[in-house]
């Protein structure tokens, strides 16, 4: 692993500003009626925010690849759990 990284304070502040901005945005969007798009946008914003936190506050950006593989694996597995469960729940009605 490369020597430990010290991130500049400015970067932290920039990330922080982004996070606050996205929070405001997502709340604002909640009150606009965009149909299905609402949910999609809000989830996209949440994913972006989470990625920012993980990459910079949690130093994933500078970490060895192994940690990214580990956490990526966890997310893939979570999607698997949700995906296959949802597949059942949503297609059950058409039985028979």
């Amino acid at each position, binding site marked *: *692993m490369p020597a*430990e990284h*010290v*991130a500049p*304070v400015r970067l*932290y*502040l920039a*990330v*922080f500003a982004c*996070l*606050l901005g996205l*929070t*405001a945005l*997502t*709340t604002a*969007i*909640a*009150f*606009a*009626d965009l149909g299905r798009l*609402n*949910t999609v946008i*809000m*989830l996209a*914003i*949440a994913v972006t*925010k*989470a990625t920012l*936190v*993980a990459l*910079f*506050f*949690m130093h994933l950006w500078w*970490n*060895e690849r*192994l*940690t990214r593989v*580990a*956490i990526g*694996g*966890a*997310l893939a*597995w*979570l999607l698997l*759990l*949700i995906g296959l*469960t*949802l597949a059942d*729940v*949503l297609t059950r009605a058409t039985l028979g």
Partner: protein
Amino acid sequence: MAELAPTVAHHFDDAEQQREAATFGMWVFLVTEVMFFGGLFTAYVAYRALYPDAFGHASNHLDVRLGTTNTAVLITSSLTMALAVRAAQVGEAPSRIVRWLAATMLLGATFLGIKLFEYGHKFHEGLVPGPAFTYTGPDARQAQLFFSLYFGMTGLHALHMVIGLALLGWLARQAIRGRFGPAFHTPIENCGLYWHFVDIVWIFLFPLLYLIGRH
């Protein structure tokens, strides 16, 4: 989750190996945390898909202003936490490390305070699942599912916050004693990872519980 040991423990070759092991170990621990919350998220997604309207109506009973405020509070606490880790990394004085930790704790406590207030409010409105549930919307039964998930998810999240606060308190004690510096700051770094993770969970809970289905 790290073994606290300022010197190299007998079974490690050197401090580098020890630090790598601790950081990697923490990430592997976070993997289990993802799956732990994952079970609840699965339940949430399944029911949201089955009862979109009921969940939409029910979510309108949550207070968006408080939710947004809490999101901002938690994000700020992540910033102060990151700065605390940084202070240790670059070898700032213990008092400065402690200052950032204290700020993080204060923000964390604020979050919990607001949450508690919200819970109290729900209690008075009869939105706590069980015999005291008095919601009378068109789909009261499914709304009860929503509030079960709401309390389950935010409750588990709050529990993590409480544990985080305890860890931070412990860190602050160690920091006062000058235990952390550029050579050794694994505990503060790992607690930071934990704290940020809890923040990320909230980043998802906020839109899922408060926002989707509003208007």
